[in-house]
């Protein structure tokens, strides 16, 4: 049955080379934790992606309840946390996952740095990786405001004040982030849009580039 469906699609789209390319490429021994336990450091990149997938899935479920306006944002998070079945777990996964993804990405970056894997010919992949790092920090910053409690509000206020101190363009950055005179209703909808549409879009594009390059160039050799 499965084979029949697969063959039907394959005849039309010729997907076998694509799939074989993803599945069959050789993974060398020096990155395999089954052969050398210390090779687990090579898993941090994969784990970052794993946690990112958890973030995307849990985030999708959170948006089923979250209401991005200043009257209801807090109430909807409160409802989700305390009334919805497993709501606390899903929000917990998104909350702690946000920290964990930063930790994993940090470790992955250090592994690449200290093994000198960013060197030629992999320079572009390092730059893309750093851009992913910045996008992740942006996701952390914008997501922090969304529960709309005092901690969220005042942290964002301070963050925007810091951005404002940038010479020449500071006031424009502030206006762009804040969407008005104060941190308020406009800021919340704006941060929500940035957090769930703009940054994840950019993230997925950069991840695609990251994976394409690692596939094309292969993992760096043993030291």
């Amino acid at each position: 049955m499965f084979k029949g469906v697969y063959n039907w699609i394959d005849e039309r789209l010729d997907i076998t080379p694509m799939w074989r390319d993803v599945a069959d490429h050789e993974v060398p021994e020096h990155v395999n934790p089954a052969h050398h336990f210390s090779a687990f450091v090579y898993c941090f990149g994969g784990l970052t992606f794993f946690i990112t997938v958890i973030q995307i899935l849990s985030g999708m479920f959170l948006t089923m309840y979250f209401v991005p306006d200043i009257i209801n944002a807090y109430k909807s998070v409160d409802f989700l946390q305390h009334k919805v079945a497993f709501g606390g777990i899903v929000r917990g996964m998104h909350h702690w996952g946000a920290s964990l993804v930063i930790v994993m990405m940090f470790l992955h970056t250090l592994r690449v740095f200290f093994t000198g894997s960013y060197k030629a010919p992999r320079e572009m992949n390092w730059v893309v990786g750093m851009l992913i790092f910045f996008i992740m920090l942006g996701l952390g910053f914008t997501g922090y405001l969304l529960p709309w409690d005092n901690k969220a509000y005042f942290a964002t206020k301070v963050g925007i004040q810091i951005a404002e101190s940038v010479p020449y363009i500071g006031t424009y950055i502030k206006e762009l982030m804040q969407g008005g005179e104060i941190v308020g209703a406009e800021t919340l909808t704006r941060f929500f849009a940035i957090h769930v549409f703009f940054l994840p879009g950019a993230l997925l594009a950069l991840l695609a580039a990251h994976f394409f390059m690692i596939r094309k160039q292969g993992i760096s050799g043993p030291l």
Partner: protein
Amino acid sequence: MAHGHKSNEKVVFVGDSRVRKKASTGPVTPPDYSAYPGKSEAFIPNFLLKEWMVGVVVLVGFLVLTISEAAPLGYPADPTNASFIPMPDWYFLFLYQFLKLQYVSKDYVVLGTVGIPGVAFGALLLAPFLDTGKERRFYRRPITSILMFMSLISVFYLTKQSWDHYEHELKITNSVPEHITREEKAREAAEEAAKAGLPAGSPPPEIPLVEAKDPTATAIIEKAKCVQCHGTDLKGNDAAGIPSFHGIGDKFSKEELVDIVTNGKDNMPSFKDTLSAEEIDQLTTWLSKQKAPAK
């Protein structure tokens, strides 16, 4: 016909405009690891299963954390709250603390927000173009490694310092992070509700004011401007730690109330210059009557 049909293909496209596969270039050929001695294996399923084992360990740790520690939630944002200590998420603490240092704040803040972080993160972004040597082992490229180690030490140190400073501030302002207060209050309310036989999660019963229209009390409340902090409904502000007048008689005796109004308590100022001793006596008599109705 522009494109001839190849009889060996199962599907025949009408007007075939597909990009022709060049005979010379096959699909992306994976790099050859035969140069390295050792056992390489296929990505799916052999290697991915091993990576998944590491993933499972992480996943279990992650889920244990998620289940044991609820995601924090404080009180709703109140822009007028002047006593709240702002704190970014932990991974921004080092930058936050950095901006408090003398030569990167106030007059030099541009150096702190753009200058030094710009150079540091710019260098990190462009690392492959700055460290162009062929050597990959970190102990054979000391400049790059030392710069990274020093940055890491600074980041850890600043983060620790920032957190210590936050704990110190909590101590001197005698405050507790809101999500903890909120959780404790919710637990107390649930316990009380359980005692009273109410279903869990029902809101605490409203306590009405006793003798709400009492003319002497109303006049004194107006004179002392109690409503400025305790609210026009005299219900206080839980989030800011301002108590409600409703049911205050259950929490304090008349003598305690006299002491609080005369000498102040926590953030509440003393009223001994605003009100006469007689007025304080009348007000506290009224306050001590504010008890929850008997059940």
